[in-house]
């Protein structure tokens, strides 16, 4: 497949792996955080860690939109879906996220709630148009990548006076999460999470550009390399980070030049600015309340804001005590450090959100990498 296979080329991967092995100094360890779930997924799916030397360690970041959604937000969505006649539309990944009382959207659906999976916000709008007699809510989640489509849906609903449509907005912001991690005591004071550099988001950066990361590189002296989601992108970014660290640089570099510019997508950004404004605070799973880390719908579009329309009051709910998702999302722990990983908590019965989405650190490791946790099994020659 053109434009894809080029970025999955095994021979090129070996060459990059050799360069990484050559340039990584044996005197030190490189702790690199891939912020995005897309990168986590690529690392696991392509068995990329097998190609890295032992002293290049990848730390999974919180960039999985489903994983960072706190239980209270899912509870609110379930409460909405329980309203008679209401249709809740949502991206498929949110369906299995565990909520309070053993529920999830999937289980609420089985109990009679009308919850429909959509592939885009446009599908949610279409459902609203086709069901004029019913209230339709789009449960909007995600980072800066999914925010512009939600903005489009709201402006279209407003222009078309689609009064039965509204959005339950849960859009969050990447830079705020990165800042939160860099400010965390584990990184700043305790040093329990060594963090030498970041692989910066791919799709998010196509929207916001590379400019917002310049602050982190400068203020926290951590190199950032923005990388695409293909495995060669990730390898190349790792090599670029190692070079920066070896040379004592802390800059924002862009490996994903085929899609990311410094300024980002001006049209998308202006649409987002038209519809949304900063939320004073938002709870993230794993990170807790993070100030100015999420968006809410502006007063101008209040009619399409499900939180205002249905008087939703946010109620925080603590995670399951045994679940380590919080620490895993901050990079403090690995999936295998969690007692319930692979026993009580599996993709079929997730306890924590990291086990839900294929981009979640636990699900990715469980699905693609857990054979490495047991002693290597001798291969029988065919």
């Amino acid at each position: 497949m053109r434009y894809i296979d080029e970025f999955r080329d095994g021979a090129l991967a070996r060459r990059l792996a050799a360069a990484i092995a050559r340039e990584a100094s044996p005197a030190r360890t490189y702790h690199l955080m891939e912020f995005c779930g897309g990168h986590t997924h690529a690392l696991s799916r392509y068995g990329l860690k097998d190609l890295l030397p032992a002293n290049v360690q990848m730390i999974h970041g919180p960039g999985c939109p489903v994983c960072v959604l706190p239980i209270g937000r899912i509870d609110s969505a379930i409460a909405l879906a329980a309203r008679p006649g209401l249709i809740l539309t949502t991206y498929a990944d949110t369906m299995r996220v565990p909520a309070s009382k053993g529920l999830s959207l999937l289980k609420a659906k089985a109990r009679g709630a009308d919850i429909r999976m959509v592939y885009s916000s446009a599908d949610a709008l279409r459902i609203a148009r086709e069901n004029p007699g019913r209230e339709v809510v789009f449960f909007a989640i995600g980072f800066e990548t999914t925010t512009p489509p939600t903005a489009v849906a709201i402006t279209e609903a407003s222009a078309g006076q689609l009064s039965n449509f509204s959005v339950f907005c849960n859009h969050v912001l990447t830079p705020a999460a990165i800042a939160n991690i860099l400010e965390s005591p584990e990184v700043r004071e305790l040093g329990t999470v060594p963090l030498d550099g970041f692989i910066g988001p791919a799709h998010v950066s196509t929207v916001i550009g590379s400019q917002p990361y310049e602050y982190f590189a400068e203020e926290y002296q951590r190199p950032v390399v923005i990388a695409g989601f293909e495995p060669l992108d990730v390898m190349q970014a790792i090599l670029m980070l190692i070079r920066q660290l070896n040379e004592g640089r802390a800059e924002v570099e862009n490996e994903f030049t085929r899609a990311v510019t410094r300024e980002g997508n001006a049209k998308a950004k202006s649409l987002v600015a038209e519809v949304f404004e900063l939320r004073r605070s938002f709870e993230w799973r794993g990170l807790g309340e993070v100030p100015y880390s999420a968006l809410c719908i502006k007063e101008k579009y209040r009619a399409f804001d499900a939180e205002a329309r249905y008087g939703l009051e946010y109620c925080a709910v603590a995670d399951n005590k045994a679940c380590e998702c919080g620490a895993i999302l901050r990079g403090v722990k690995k999936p295998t450090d969690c007692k319930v990983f692979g026993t009580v908590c599996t993709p079929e019965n997730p306890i924590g959100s990291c086990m839900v989405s294929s981009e979640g650190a636990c699900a990715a490791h469980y699905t693609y990498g857990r054979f490495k946790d047991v002693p290597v099994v001798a291969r029988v020659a065919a």
Partner: protein
Amino acid sequence: MSGVLPDYVRPVDFKHGRVDMTHGSGGRAMAQLIDELFLRAFDNEWLRAGNDSARFAVPAGRMVIATDSHVVSPLFFPGGDIGCLSVHGTINDVAMSGAAPLYLAATFVLEEGFPLSDLKRIVASMASASRAAGVPVVTGDTKVVEQGKGDGVFITTTGIGIVPEGVDIAGDHARPGDAIIISGTLGDHGVAIMSQRENLSFETAIESDTAALHGLVAAMVAAVPRIHCLRDPTRGGLATTLNEIARQSRCGMLVRERELPVKPQVSAACEFLGLDPLYVANEGKLVAIASAGDAAPLLAAMRAHPLGREAVIIGEVIEDPHHFVQMDTSFGGRRNVDWLTGEQLPRIC
């Protein structure tokens, strides 16, 4: 003289008519539907006998029975429809034991309001698939459910077949060192279905691979009677089938990604839908596992058959107490190929 024709029955209006509750009530309307639709389409001596069951002589030897319900949405898709799918699906389940399928039974659950023209099209497709396969539908049943309680039509088919002497194919027969062979490209059916879904429709030249595989199996069994395992990777795709066999045979598997045959169009569709072709359904493919020594003659027999032309060895059975299916990625790493979690595609077969 009266104009009444005492034996006259007005024909079923297949052009404009719809299924109603009387078609399942056991009365005249049901009898008429059976006569004018099912009997006419499937026409054979057993159905003509008009009994509630079909009677036939049983050949000596071991028999197999398999049943499969079909609830696919949409009912018509590129390369097939629920009708031919329901024939192929059960024939394949029977054939995967190495058996020659003999007879089919079919049950229809119809939803009130379903257009009779669509039903006729589906039954015609079933009849032609059954005739082409040489496996007659010898008995059946029809039920009608109220509107909103079905989804047009559900079809359950049951098949029986006879296993040739000396053939012993089962999911727990895979042994370390065995070769794993796939009969052709992965994911065609799932992607064809996906391309037609209402909220997703995209244009593709991909057609479902739905096909009856008993002819291919007969050729394989004739060449290598000692095949260890056969299975058709339908729902859950190749990944699920390999995991099932690994668990049953208490072994592991190691496949090589670069050997996996996937059409570029399927690969592209999977890419933008976020699917993995390893988990996408097939309806006309099989996985064969045989000893390393039998692999070459088996592969040759498969490639000589039209439905196995693209057969290829994709990996080996290995020893592994954890029964993992592993894959060497084209990229150079190794990873698990796990069971499917949740569902990739709703209602595909």
